[in-house]
Every structure is written in C-alpha cells, then in structure tokens.
C-alpha cells in the first residue's frame, strides 16, 4: 500500500479497496520504523493524522470526497500549522506553536489531506544538504551516507522512502528541485506568486515559493491544484485562475521546442549526471520534441546575485526573532542588548548567522548600491535572458544539480562549494519562473535529476512534459533498497 502514488491511492480509496485510516496507520508505522534512520520528520502527528483520516473516510461515505480526500502527506516544517510546533529547523523556534495555519496547509486540509507530520529541513531553509537543521541531518534513503539535498531534504527523503506519497516543500534557490533530484523524486517550484506565502516562514521573500514534492508529475499536478490560487493575505500572490493541471497532463510532445542552455552543460557537471540528462533528452527527441541549443549568457552571475539578495532579505526577515515575544530567549538577560545578542546567538546556527551578517553588510550605507542594487540589476539581466529564450523555445532543460547526492559532511565546512550545488536552479528563482525536477537515471547508486524550466505560469506545460516522459520510463518507480 505504501508503494502507491497519490493517483493510485485516490483510485483505491474511491474504489473502497482500503480506507484512509488503514493507509494512514500503515504509513505512520513506516514513519515510526524508518524515521530513526532517516530523520526525515521533526514532528510526527499520529493522533491528529488518524483523526483527519477518519474524518476523510466519513466525508467519502457522505459522497463529498475530492481526489485528495484521505491522502496522507507531510508538511515541510516551514509551514505554520495551528496547534502543532513549527520549528523551521531552528532552535530559535524549537518550542514555537503558531495559532494559525499557512494558506497552503489550510487549502490542503480543506481538500481532505491527512498530515502525518512536519518534515526536517535546513535551518530557516538556508542550506543545500539538510545539514544545517537544529534537529540533525536527514539521510538519503538511496545511501544513508549521502545527504538528501536541501533545504526541503526531509520532504524529499520521506517521499523517496515511501513514508508519505507526497509532501510540501519550499524553494528559494532550488530547495524543492535539488533535493527532489538527489532523492530521485519529482518536485515543482511554481511561478512566484502562484502559491500563497501566508504562514510560510520567510527566508527571502522575493524568491520564496511553496510547491509540491511527490513521486510523479501526475501527483504533483494533483497537489498543486489544491495548493495554488489567489490569497488576499499575500500581496505578491497573483490573482489568476488555477488551471486543471491533471486534465492538462496529456498535452502532446510533438513539436515541443526544448532549449538546452550551453551554460548548463559545461565545467563542473558530473559526467554520469550529464549522461543521464542527455539520455533523457534523447528520449524526448524520440517522443517528437525538438531540442535546440540556446544561451543564457548571464548564468554565471546567478549565484553571486542570489547570495546578495537572499541574505539581504533574510537579514531583515529574521530580525523579528529577537527573544521578546516568542521563540528562544536566553537565560537571565542583563539588559536589552544582552537579550538580543544572546537570544539570537544561541537561537541561530552558523549558516543562518553567516547569511544574516552577509545581508546586513550588503544593505549597509555605502554598500547598498554596490551590492543590493547591483544584484537587483543582475536579476533583470537574468530575467531578460529567459525572456529571450522563451521567444524561441517552449521549455528549457538541463541538469537540476551538477552532481548526484554528495556525502554527509563532504561540503559542510565549505560554503562556496555547497552554494555551487544550486548553480542551475537559482536563476529560476531570481527570474520568478516555474521549474520542475524529475528523476532520469543514476550516477552510481545515487539518482540524477532533469530540470525543466517553463515560462511564467506554465506549470501545466512543465507537468505534462514530465508526465509524458514518466509514461514511457520507470525511473520514478524505482525505490531505494530497503524501503
């Protein structure tokens, strides 16, 4: 039962083959069994999950079920959940319980999903390996010595290990797509503004976007349909109708123009990952698509621009964690400055501290123009690169990450090398475009991901392009040994 996709579970529930309660129990047992190894969950909400499952079963009996009713999922611990701890992977919020639900949680609750728990993540979503979490690293189910990627590493590992058929994630510079690639699952970062950010703890507000993570594009389509949509509580959320992503899955591939940015296939790309990606592109050619080489000339500026904009915004966004109203407060502060410095010093880990410092510096008088303003100009150049590309092609393809999963501890002490693992994903956030990662093979024992980048609000296209591939291949069906 745990090996089923969301679409299969939905059909099974509808056919009465099993109940949501039975399924939820089975998955909770798996979580109990495997979480000690994987550390994918920070909080397990068994009791409320069973209550939600029973409520979903009743709803089904009353004939009011929708496709997601009774489907167990997990939420990245960055989404606020009413009455359940939301830690954001940080000591700062170790005991924080929000009195409200994030819009994404609210919408998925309304669709009848069952929350199994809250998944582990890099602290405040800052990291690419899940090693910055206060709750310890998550292990990659394909190889327990490998990282799952980050920051949505807990969600990716939980889906890959069949502890949950789907999960939510957030993506600021690749935090859905890179762990999806490293764990061999499918993950979508929607267009900026497609999914509400209300109740999603901010890292870099102009880049953050929530999205679905599951085994297949079809499952992501099901989840995104429930997550997306206008929310008057988020001023950056776009008021635009949500298409039926599932209905759009079978759009034909014939004549699809695929852009292959030459900058994404150069130095630093692992040979086996490159092979897997090239094989996938060859498959697309067989299916009638037309790959062409394109150029995104400002690609090399994406990482430097990102590491100015994101820290700048985070330095301001994380100022609210001051020990005054909620969150970690140091013992016996002797004065206000001591309260601030010790509460924050104790509450935040090294990577978060590093980014706050970098961002504070970048926004300081005398440096603002040289860093923040310059980075914003680069953002426009990068967006222009994509705009020109989408005048020629429908979809852009390339590797999601330059390598497969690396070993735990391998890059933990070298921030620059770690930052490079998001080299292909970051530009997409800077431009606000949708991007999707799907599994297309292996580098050794570890999965390799293909990234699809679409034009604004072309989530339906990305999902259908991924879905058509998944109908003729089985990479997405491969399960890690032992799970």
């Amino acid at each position, binding site marked *: 039962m745990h090996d089923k996709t969301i679409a299969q579970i939905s059909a099974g529930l509808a056919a009465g083959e099993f109940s949501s309660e039975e399924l939820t129990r089975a998955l909770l047992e798996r979580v109990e069994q495997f979480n000690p190894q994987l550390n994918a969950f920070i909080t397990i909400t068994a009791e409320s999950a069973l209550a939600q499952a029973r409520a979903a079963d009743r709803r089904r009996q009353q004939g009011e079920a929708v496709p997601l009713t009774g489907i167990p999922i997990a939420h990245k611990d960055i989404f606020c959940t009413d009455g359940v701890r939301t830690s954001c992977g940080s000591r700062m919020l170790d005991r924080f319980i929000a009195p409200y639900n994030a819009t994404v949680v609210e919408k998925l609750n309304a669709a009848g999903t069952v929350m199994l728990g809250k998944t582990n993540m890099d602290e405040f979503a800052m990291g690419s390996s899940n090693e910055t979490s206060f709750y310890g690293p998550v292990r990659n189910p394909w190889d327990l010595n490998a990282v799952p990627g980050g920051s949505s590493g807990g969600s990716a590992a939980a889906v890959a290990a069949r502890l949950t058929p789907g999960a939510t994630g957030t993506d600021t510079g690749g935090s859905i797509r890179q762990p999806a690639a490293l764990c061999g699952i499918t993950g979508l970062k929607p267009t900026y503004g497609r999914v509400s950010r209300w109740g999603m703890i901010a890292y870099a507000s102009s880049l953050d976007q929530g999205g679905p993570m599951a085994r297949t594009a079809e499952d992501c389509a099901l989840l995104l349909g429930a997550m997306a949509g206008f929310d008057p509580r988020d*001023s950056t959320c776009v008021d635009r109708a949500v298409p039926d992503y599932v209905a759009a899955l079978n759009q034909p591939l014939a004549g699809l123009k695929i852009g292959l940015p030459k900058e994404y296939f150069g130095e630093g790309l692992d040979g086996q990952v490159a092979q897997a990606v090239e094989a996938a592109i060859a498959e697309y050619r067989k299916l009638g698509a037309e790959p062409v080489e394109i150029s995104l000339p400002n690609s090399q500026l994406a990482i430097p621009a990102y590491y100015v904009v994101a820290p700048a915004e985070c330095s301001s966004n994380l100022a609210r964690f001051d020990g005054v109203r909620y969150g970690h407060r140091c013992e016996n502060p002797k004065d206000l400055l001591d309260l601030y410095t010790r509460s924050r010093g104790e509450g935040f880990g090294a990577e978060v501290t590093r980014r706050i410092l970098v961002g504070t510096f970048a926004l300081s008088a005398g440096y603002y123009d040289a860093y923040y303003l310059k980075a914003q100009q680069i953002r426009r150049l990068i967006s222009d690169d994509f705009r020109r590309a989408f005048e020629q092609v429908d979809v852009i393809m390339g590797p999601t990450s330059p390598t497969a999963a690396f070993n735990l501890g391998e890059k933990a002490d070298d921030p620059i090398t770690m930052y490079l693992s998001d080299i292909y994903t970051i530009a997409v956030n800077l431009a606000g475009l949708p991007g999707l990662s799907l599994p297309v093979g292996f580098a050794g024992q570890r999965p390799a991901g293909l990234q699809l980048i679409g034009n604004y609000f072309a989530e339906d296209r990305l999902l259908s392009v991924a879905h058509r591939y998944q109908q003729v291949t089985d990479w997405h069906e491969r399960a890690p040994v032992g799970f």
Partner: protein
Amino acid sequence: MKWETVIGLEIHAQLATKSKIFSGASTGYGAEPNTQACAIDLGMPGVLPVLNQEVVRMAAMFGLAIGAEIARRSVFARKNYFYPDLPKGYQISQYELPIVQKGQTIIDLEDGSSKVVGITRAHLEEDAGKSLHEDFQGFSGIDLNRAGTPLLEIVSEPDLRSAKEAVAYMKKLHQLVVYLGICDGNMQEGSFRCDANVSVRPKGDPKFGTRAEIKNLNSFRFVERAIEFEIERQIDLIESGGKVVQETRLYDPDKGETRSMRGKEEANDYRYFPDPDLLPLVLDEAFINAARTELPELPDTKKQRFMEQYELSGYDASVLTVSRDLAGYYEATVAALGGEAKLCANWVMGDFSAFLNKDNRDIADSPVDSVRLAGLLRRIEDRTISGKIAKEVFEAMWAGEGDADAIIEKRSLRQITDTSAIEQVIDDVMAGNPDQLAQYRAGKDKLFGFFVGQVMKLSKGKANPQQVNELLMEKLKG
C-alpha cells in the same frame, strides 16, 4: 551678532482609518494593552502585510489639498532597527519614492502678512508600539496596540524662521487634515504630533547651521516653547564658543527645556530597502480623480468665499472657517434666518462658541441647533426682544427650555414698543426721582444715563432702548 533661525517640521498625522495600515486589527484608542494587535501587528512568523486601500485615498486627498504631485508609483521600504516595541525588527515606511511629493501651504503671520511654506513630501508608514517603563519593577512593558497604526509623515522644507511660524504652520496643517477628514487631530492621544529640526545661523549666511531634532512634540504650546528654548540654547552655545552637535533631543514640558537623547541612540544605519512583501503602489488617473472629487471646500477657499458672500472681515471669516463644523453651522444659521450675515457671525463667534467651550461640547451635540439660533436672531431683528434679553433667551435655550418664541412667551420677555406704555414708565420714574430731575433740568446732562437705567430697570429690560432714549429726551426737557 544677529541670528536667524531655520526650522523644518516633520508632522505625524495618524490617519483616521478603522483598521491598521497592514492588518485588519482595530485602531481604536485606549484599549487594554495588547488587545488590539493581531498576528501581523505582533510580527509572528510567516505573516504578511496587506495595504489598507483607505490610507492611499487619504494620502492622495492630502496631496491634492496641498497642490502636490501624487506619485503614480510609490514604494514601501523597510527601515531596519531593533527595538522591543518594533515587532518585526523593521518599520514599513516609504523612503525613496513617497506617495506625495512637492506641495505647499500658505500661513498667516501675526503682522498680517502671509508666507508660503514648502512641503517636501508626505509618506505613508506604520507606527510602532509603546514601551512602558513605569509599573514594572526592573522590567519594561510592551503595548503593541499602536503597532501598525497608519501615519502620514509630512515633511516641510526648512522654510520656517521662528517658533511662531512653526506653530502657525502646524496649526494650518492640523486644520487641513481635520477638514479633509483624514485625521481626528486629537493631540492628547498623539494623533497629530511633530518632530522639529532647529538650527541657527548668522543672519545673511546662506549655509545652514548644524541642526538638532526635537522629538515627539504633541501640543502647539510645546512646539513653541521647545523651539524657543532650543534657539536660545544654540545661540548661547555658539556665542560662548561651543558648537551645536547634530543630535536628537527631547522636550521636558515640566522643566521647559530640551535634553539630549545621546547615549540612548547609537549611530543608526537603517538599511532601507524595498519591502519585498509589498508590490509598488501604482495609482492611475481614475483613482486620483476620484480622490479629487472627494475633496471638501478647503479652509482658504472657504474663508475667501465667506468674505465675499457674507461681506465679513478677514478676521471673522478666519474664525468661522476654523473648522468645517463651525463654518457649516454658521452657513445654516444664515440660511435659516434668510440673511443678517453679520448678526449671525457675531452670535456664532460669540455666545454660541462661548457656551460650547464652557461645556466642552462639539457642534454635533450642541443643544441649540442652527434653526433655533436663527429663530432667536429673528426676534432681535424684528425687535421683539433686545440683544440683551436675547442673551437670557439663549441661555434658556441652551438649558433646554425650548425654542426662542416659547421662552419669550413663557418668561414674558417681549420687548415693549408701545409708546404710551413706555411713557407711563417714564412718568413713574420722573415722579419717583424729583431731585435728579431738578438737577438734570439745571444742566446736569450726565444724569440722562441714570434715567435710562431706571426706565429699563422698571420695565425689566423689556422697553425698546431706542424708543426709551427718544421719549426720555423729550419728556425730560419738560
């Protein structure tokens, strides 16, 4: 040496919205601490601001009223600093691109001249909460009810040259925002307050001196006193060889002096940057035109009209247009009476305003409405009662005894205009005061007033004074 003072004011006007600038919480004043602060005002994790459209309309109206440019695109920015009553660690304000740019207003000076004061900009921002340092031994309390209250910060050019000019300017803007209905103007509650930037320079020097900023002045009197103290302090300092330092100062009304806040404030770098949670504020012509149609007649225009339409002096017109309510009351009285604009002006500015002040009432809950006041004035005009008796009737009306006619009837206050009746009274007075009569007739003209007084007294004030004069004059001759 002769010194010249240079003053610029930053006025904070609290916009009179029901809810906060970025949340749905109430802006009501005086509630229990922290009962009017929602998750957004508290800066909880994951919450987001949504702009209250009402504040945009209000800011646009203000901009139009001062002949300013309304920015078609303005940007909210974050002003970053740590303070316990600033929940997010930043204040959302407008920095490089404010909504209102380049306006002006004209103030009237005491010598009868007037002066144009430039208004550099007006921008929208959120207020912070309050730190309460009393009542908590060894601790500070934080009340976040005020956090997120909408403010319009109005920044003047350094055009003001004295404390009196600064007060005239502040009063002018106070009148304007209340006229526009965008601020309740309540200074005790902090709805209208200002920071004053004050510097001095040798007269004729084109360069500005170093300025000190006096924070949070919440009464016209404090503004005047604080600035006057500060001017004197700076001149004394320079003349005794010292130098003014750029700093923030606080005014202590009890001691009547300004004091440095140094030590409390470090050199602040606010690290302003555009707030990524809010889109740039874009206004189209339709919005601005709609705001324009909502503008009421403004004080200057109204005053001019009163002078022309009602043939009032500049002084009367200024007093009557000090507020929209008073001007409206005046105009309604004139309309109900069908003329006699000057008589109406005297009564509205005189007894009516005096009674309002005495009872500390607003016009809206005045016991004497404009129709009733006109009813009283009509009886003066048709000589049913004298002006003096009218004051008594007005007092009775204020006390709720009914309209003028009813009171005149009930208290038999109708003026005596019947010549024979007045003559009868005069005869009685003459008969009762033979000595004075003899003296008068012997040439002591001054006693005429005595006889008028006696006649009025005997008639209980009801005899028509003009007739009394004429008839007495004749009869006393003998």
